[in-house]
């Protein structure tokens, strides 16, 4: 049991982590390493698809619990489950071409299958609506939160103001058509912004590399879901 729950997953993880690293540093002429790398990449595509199943199980579990306990907002949970079930059913029937559900994209004559219809006329407008609401909340949040409370906040405020003006033609208009603000915005993006972004990226990459190393050598085991004393 211990072998299945601990040793085997650790060995698989170590192998999956080491193969791409070894293959990366070996010549493309070495057949066995390239063969292993290609296999692993194919398996990754398949395994990644299983992540969707994991997501579905998680969404169902948490929403069913919410509905059962009549927690706040439970009707939204019910709507979510209904929408997911409806689209999944239409999609699965379409994949097996059952009755009127002939595929999940367009029909050969250019018409829409029921799944495509749902994606275009229900899902797309809903998602676009959700994102469009952001404009209203961002304006309100900017009014309330963007205050020159101290030096750091003032620098941020001025930089944001310059970028907002520099990214619209009005910024040029108020300077008599001269693109100073646009150029200053590009400078801000090219230098201070890029430097800060690079710092964040390098930090995150080093963190990811060290965590990967811990996982490969078996120090980091939390992903196995073991109890404390196992």
């Amino acid at each position: 049991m211990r072998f299945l729950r601990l040793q085997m997953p650790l060995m698989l993880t170590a192998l999956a982590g080491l193969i791409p690293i070894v293959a990366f540093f070996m010549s493309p002429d070495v057949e066995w390493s390239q063969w292993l790398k290609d296999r692993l990449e194919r398996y990754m595509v398949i395994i990644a698809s299983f992540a969707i199943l994991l997501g579905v199980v998680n969404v169902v579990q948490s929403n069913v619990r919410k509905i059962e306990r009549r927690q706040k907002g439970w009707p939204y949970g019910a709507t979510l489950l209904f929408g997911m079930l409806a689209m999944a059913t239409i999609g699965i029937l379409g994949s097996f071409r059952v009755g009127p559900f002939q595929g999940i994209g367009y029909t050969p004559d250019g018409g829409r299958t029921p799944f495509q219809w749902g994606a275009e006329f229900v899902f797309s407008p809903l998602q676009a609506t959700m994102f469009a609401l952001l404009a209203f909340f961002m304006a309100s949040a900017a009014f309330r939160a963007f205050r020159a409370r101290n030096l750091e906040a003032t620098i941020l405020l001025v930089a944001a103001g310059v970028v907002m003006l520099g990214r619209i033609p009005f910024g040029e208009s108020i300077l008599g058509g001269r693109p100073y603000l646009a150029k200053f915005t590009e400078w801000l993006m090219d230098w201070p912004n890029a430097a800060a972004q690079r710092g964040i990226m390098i930090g995150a990459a080093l963190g990811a590399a060290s965590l990967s190393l811990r996982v490969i050598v078996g120090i980091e085991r939390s992903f196995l879901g073991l109890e404390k004393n196992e």
Partner: protein
Amino acid sequence: MDWLTKLMSLDRRYIFLFVAIGTALPILFPIGFKVSITPPVRNIYDKVESLGPEDVVMFSFDYGPSTSPENDPMADATLRHCLSRGIKVIVIALYPVGGVTMADQSLSRVLADFPQVRRGIDYVHLGYKSGSQATMKQMGESMAAVFPTDRYGTPLEEIPLMKRVRNYDDMRLVVSFATGIIGEWWANLINAQFHVPIAVGCTAVSAPKYYAYLNSGQMIGLLGGLKGASEYEKLLIDHYPDARATYDRAGLYTAIKGMDAQTVIHTVILVFIILGNVAFLAGRGKR
């Protein structure tokens, strides 16, 4: 209650009202602000200009309907540019939540203006594939291993265009229209390992992070939000008479038209930020 207190505690519904009016009016009554071109956009345009009918460009639709007002115009404009030059185009989608629908819609909008373009010969639509990073890496070895058929079920070996495209080595440019992290993977994973030139069209909110890749040479150019898309449209309109006719068409949503609304909204938000700070500083001075 003095005016300062009133301003500080302004009901947010007034702000919502201004945003709604600021968006609706420029859409109903276009202003037509001048568009100036920035280097990251010019670089992509110049790269496409350097390509010809023997070259292949791949478009990856890595966004969904939520950001389509920003990403659609840039996808349409670059696709239009490539087809105008006779460049062969491969379309894929890696974004799970609507990427392939965005690709379908963009192709159908643009192809309506190019009746001479033939499916399988001048362009190919390979559809969606899950797996993101793994899929992207595997395309570096073999496109056929990732996409055995195109979006319409035709095996890849039967598609004339795909007979000469094995992997990234056969492409001169990859353009990703991205809303999330997939655009970054094209730069830091695919460019780094396979050296294919990458251009990214992203939403304005995610544009800052791409400047690091742009400066390091991992990307050849960047279309940042609606502004970037409007610049590309402007370049097309200035250099391609057919594009001018297309973009002048009434009822067609374009980034240049969208920039009117964005300009007014940015100004409205800036005015509110200034008012908020005036009230804040005056209030602090009083205390």
